[in-house]
C-alpha cells in the first residue's frame, strides 16, 4: 500500500554526522566503580527513596517509588550496596544537585526475582501500573511517564499510533542501532501500546537516512505477523519531533493547546516500546539504555549503559581526543553541555557528544536582527521568531504570548539559520521562564489573598456565633431562674440538637449548614493533600515514627475527649 506522506513547513538540513557511530554494534558498557542514580529521572513527581545507606540491593530492586500517577519508579541498575542517599550533581544544564542513590556494585549483577507477565491476561489499568513501576518513560529524551500516555481520549477514537524511529538529531544513532539489533522487541512493545490504545493503524516512522533500521523493522513486523506500517520519511530536522512526525505520517497538526489523543493520535519512541516489552514480558525494569558516544572521540559507538554511570566512566570508553572541551548530552541542536564529569547517565541521555572548537566553533558575535525572516521560514511551528525575539528582548512578555511563544518547541532551527547569530532559543527560554515565574507569583498572591479573606470571614463568623451563644446562655440562665419546672428543654440544647432545623431562626440553620460544609471540605482536603512528611530522608522518617509512637497514647485520650465534645457535629457530617 502506498502511504501518502505529508510535510511540515520549515526545518533545516544540517550535516547528520551519523556514520562514525554506526560502524560497530551496540557494546555493553562495563560496570563502573560507583553508580549515582538520581531519583527524579522523569517528568512528574519525585519518587520516594525506599532504601537507606548500608542496604544491600539487587539488580532491578525498586529504590524509588512513583509518588503519584504522573511519576515513574527508579530501580537499582545492578546488585551492590547503597553507599549514600544524597544530593549529587544532576545531568542538567543548571548543574544543580539532585537527590541520588549512590550504589557500589558488588560485581555479581544479581537479579531480583523477575516476574514475566502475560499482559493480555491483565486489566489495562494493571498494565499501566506495571509500566509505571518498571520506570518506563519516553526515552526519546522527554522522559514523560509512558503509562500516562496510554489512555485514549474519551470522546475521540484513537486512529493512529505513531512509533517514532525518525531520530532527526545529527550525530545521534542510538535508535538506529536499537532498531537494527532489537527490532523484534520494539515491534512487540508497540503491540502492547496498540492493545492499550486500540488505534486503527500503527505507523512506524524512520528517516530515510537509516535504510538498515527500516529494513530490520520491516522484517520484524513481517516475522511477528503484525500489520504495522514501516514508513521512511524524508530526512529533515526536526522530522523526529513528535508533532512533526505525526504531521508527516498522518497530516494532523497537534497545536500546543491540545494533547495528541484529542486528535486521535499518540506517539512513542522506539526505545520506549522496547523497554515496555522488556518490562512486561521479562519483568525487567528500565535499568540501562542505549547511548551514542560520538563527536571528538577515537571510538564512536553505541553502548548499553547502566543508568547512573558517571559521565567520566562512560566517556572513557570512547577515548576523547586531547582538544575535547566538553560533553554535550543530547544532539547538537537541542542538547546541552553536561555540568561535569560526575554527572550521571540518566534515562534522558540518548547521546553524549565530545565537543571541540573544531566541531562546534564558538558562536560569532551577535549582530542586530535585520528582520530577514530566515527564522520564520525555518520554524517548523510556523511562528515568527524575530517578532518574539524583539518582544522578549524588550521584556514585553505579554506580546511574546500573543506571538504564540508557548508553541515554540525550542528545536533551534531559528538559531541555526540566523545570519545575525542571535541565540534566539535562549531568548525564548528566558521569556517562557519569566512568564512561568510571574504566573506562579500571581497564583501565590491570589492564594494568600483568598486565605486572608477566608480568615477574616471565619473570625467574624466566630465572633457572631460567640455573641449568639452568650446571649442564649444568658437567656437560658434567666429562664432557669424563673420557676417553670414543666419545661425541661433549654433553648441551648434545642439549637445544638437534632431538631435544630425545626428552629424558627433560618439564619442560625444556614450558619450551621455552612459550618458543616466547611468541616467536610477540611476533611476532604486533609485526605487529598500530601502530608509534609512525604519526601523526607529515611533517618528523618524514623525519628518521626518514634515521636508518633510516644504521642499515640496521649493522642488516643485527646481524641476520646474531642469526640465527646463534638459529637453532634460529627454525626451530622458523617450523614453526608
Amino acid at each position: 500500500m502506498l502511504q501518502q506522506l505529508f510535510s511540515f513547513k520549515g526545518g533545516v538540513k544540517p550535516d547528520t554526522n551519523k556514520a562514525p557511530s554506526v560502524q560497530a554494534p551496540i557494546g555493553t558498557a562495563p560496570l563502573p566503580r560507583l553508580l549515582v542514580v538520581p531519583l527524579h529521572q522523569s517528568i512528574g513527581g519525585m519518587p520516594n527513596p525506599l532504601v537507606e545507606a548500608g542496604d544491600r540491593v539487587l539488580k532491578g530492586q525498586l529504590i524509588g517509588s512513583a509518588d503519584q500517577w504522573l511519576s515513574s519508579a527508579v530501580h537499582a541498575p545492578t546488585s551492590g550496596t547503597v553507599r549514600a542517599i544524597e544530593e549529587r550533581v544532576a545531568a542538567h544544564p543548571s548543574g544543580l544537585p539532585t537527590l541520588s542513590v549512590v550504589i557500589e556494585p558488588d560485581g555479581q549483577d544479581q537479579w531480583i526475582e523477575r516476574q514475566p507477565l502475560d499482559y493480555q491476561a491483565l486489566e489495562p489499568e494493571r498494565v499501566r501500573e506495571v509500566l509505571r513501576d518498571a520506570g518506563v518513560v519516553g526515552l526519546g529524551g522527554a522522559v514523560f511517564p509512558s503509562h500516562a500516555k496510554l489512555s485514549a481520549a474519551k470522546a475521540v477514537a484513537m486512529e493512529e499510533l505513531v512509533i517514532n524511529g525518525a531520530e532527526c538529531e545529527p550525530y545521534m544513532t542510538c535508535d538506529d542501532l536499537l532498531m537494527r539489533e532489537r527490532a523484534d522487541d520494539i515491534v512487540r512493545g508497540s503491540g502492547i501500546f496498540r492493545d492499550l490504545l486500540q488505534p486503527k493503524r500503527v505507523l512506524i516512522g524512520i528517516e530515510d537516512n537509516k535504510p538498515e533500521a527500516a529494513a530490520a523493522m520491516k522484517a520484524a513486523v513481517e516475522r511477528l505477523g503484525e500489520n504495522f506500517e514501516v514508513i521512511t520519511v524524508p530526512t529533515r530536522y526536526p522530522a523526529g519531533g513528535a508533532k512533526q512526525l505525526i504531521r508527516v505520517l498522518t497530516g494532523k497538526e497537534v497545536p500546543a493547546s491540545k494533547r495528541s489523543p484529542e486528535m486521535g493520535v499518540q506517539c512513542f519512541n522506539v526505545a520506549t516500546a522496547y523497554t515496555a516489552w522488556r518490562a512486561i514480558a521479562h519483568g525487567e525494569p528500565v535499568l540501562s539504555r542505549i547511548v551514542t558516544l560520538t563527536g571528538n572521540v577515537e571510538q564512536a559507538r553505541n553502548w548499553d549503559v547502566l543508568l547512573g554511570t558517571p559521565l567520566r566512566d562512560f566517556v572513557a570508553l570512547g577515548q576523547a581526543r586531547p582538544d575535547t572541551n566538553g560533553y554535550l548530552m543530547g544532539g547538537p541542536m537541542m542538547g546541552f553541555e553536561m555540568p561535569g564529569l560526575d554527572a550521571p547517565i540518566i534515562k534522558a541521555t540518548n547521546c553524549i557528544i565530545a565537543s571541540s572548537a573544531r566541531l562546534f566553533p564558538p558562536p560569532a558575535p551577535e549582530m542586530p536582527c535585520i528582520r530577514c525572516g530566515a527564522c520564520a521560514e525555518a520554524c517548523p511551528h510556523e511562528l515568527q521568531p524575530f517578532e518574539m525575539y524583539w518582544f522578549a528582548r524588550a521584556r514585553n512578555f505579554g506580546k511574546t504570548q500573543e506571538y504564540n511563544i508557548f508553541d515554540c518547541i525550542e528545536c533551534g532551527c531559528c538559531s541555526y539559520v540566523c545570519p545575525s547569530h542571535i541565540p534566539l532559543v535562549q531568548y525564548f527560554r528566558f521569556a517562557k521562564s519569566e512568564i512561568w515565574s510571574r504566573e506562579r507569583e500571581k497564583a501565590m498572591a491570589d492564594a494568600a489573598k483568598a486565605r486572608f479573606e477566608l480568615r477574616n470571614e471565619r473570625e467574624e463568623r466566630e465572633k457572631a456565633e460567640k455573641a449568639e451563644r452568650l446571649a442564649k446562655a444568658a437567656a437560658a440562665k434567666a429562664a432557669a431562674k424563673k420557676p417553670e419546672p414543666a419545661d425541661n428543654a433549654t433553648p441551648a440544647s434545642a439549637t445544638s440538637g437534632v431538631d435544630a432545623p425545626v428552629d424558627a431562626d433560618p439564619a442560625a440553620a444556614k450558619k450551621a449548614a455552612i459550618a458543616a460544609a466547611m468541616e467536610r471540605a477540611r476533611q476532604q482536603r486533609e485526605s487529598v493533600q500530601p502530608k509534609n512528611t512525604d519526601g523526607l530522608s529515611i533517618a528523618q522518617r524514623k525519628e518521626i515514627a518514634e515521636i508518633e509512637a510516644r504521642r499515640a497514647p496521649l493522642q488516643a485520650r485527646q481524641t476520646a475527649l474531642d469526640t465527646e465534645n463534638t459529637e453532634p457535629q460529627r454525626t451530622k457530617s458523617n450523614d453526608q
Partner: protein
Amino acid sequence: MNFTTPPYLIQDVSVQRIMLQVLAALLPGIAVYVWLLGPIVLLQIAIATIACVLAEAGMLKLLNKPLALFLGDGSAIVTAWLIALAFPPLSPWWLIVVGALFAIVVAKHLYGGLGQNPFNPAMIAFAVCIVSFPALMSQWPPVDLPGGFAEHLALVMGTAPRLDAMSGATPLDALKTALKLAEGTQAVPNILADARTFGHFAGRGWEWVGVAYLLGGLWLWQRRIISWHAPFAFLAGIGVLSGALWVVNPAGFASPIFHLFSGGAMLGAFFIVTDPVSGCTTPRGKLIFGFGAGALAYVIRVFGGYPDGVAFAVLLLNICVPLIDLYTQPPIFGMKNK
C-alpha cells in the same frame, strides 16, 4: 563551566555574506551602466561608498558600537551603491555626499542603526535630494554621452559648467513632457518612435540596465537571499495599473513593458522593496507592501510632478509596514482551521 547554549550547530551564514551577495547582484547593472556612460559611473559609486563608510564609522564611534564588527557587515556599502545607482549619473560629488550622509546618519543611525531603521536609507537620500535639489536630481545624461572621462570628471567635481549636451531628462520624463507639450495631439506610440530617446521597449540604453537588474535580482532569488513575494508584487503593481490604462487608452499611456523597464522599477523591485529591515516580513505582507509600492510608484511617475515615483512610493509604504505585518500574521502550526 562555560555557558554555551544550543544549538551548537550553526549554519555558515552571516549578515556580511548576505550583503556581499546583494552587492554581487548589482554588478551586472553596474556593468551595463559603465558600458553606456563610461568609467565615470565607477567614480560615482566610489564617492558614495567613501561617504557612507566614513559616515558609518563616525556614527559607530559616536555611539560606542564595535567598529570592526559593524563596518564589516557591509550594509553601509549596499546603501552607498544603491544611492549611487539611484542618483543621476554625473551628479556633482557633493550631491551624492549629502544623500549618503543623510541616509547613514539620520535614516539609519539616529533610528538605532542596523536593523532598526523604519525607512529605506537609500530612498530617504533620494527623497531628500530631489526635494532639495530638484533640478540637479532631474538631469539625466543621454546615453551617447559626449566627451571623455576628463570632461565627466570635471562635471562631477564641479570644476566645469554643466552643459546642456551633458544633461537631459529621463525617458520617463521625456515622455511625460512630450505628452504635456503635445496636449493630446501626439499619441504615445509616436513619441516612443523617437529613436534618440527611446529604444526597443523602454528608454534607449537604459532599458538594458533594467534587464541587468532583473538578472541580478533573479540570481538573488535563486540564492534565497530574497523571496519572490515583494519583487513580484511590486512589478505586478506597476504592470497591472499601467496595463489597465494602456489597454483602455494606448494613445495616452505607455505599455507595461515600457514602465517596467524604465526609471527605478527594476532596481526598486529587486533591491529596494526587498530590504528586509524597512519592508514587510510576512509573505502576505510582502505582497501587499510590494503591490502598494508598485502601484503608487506608477501613479506618482505618470500623474505626479516627479520624474519617477519609486522613492516616495517605497517610503510611504514603509510607514504602513507595522500595520501590514500586524494584520497579515500567518496562522501557526495546528491553528490553520481556526
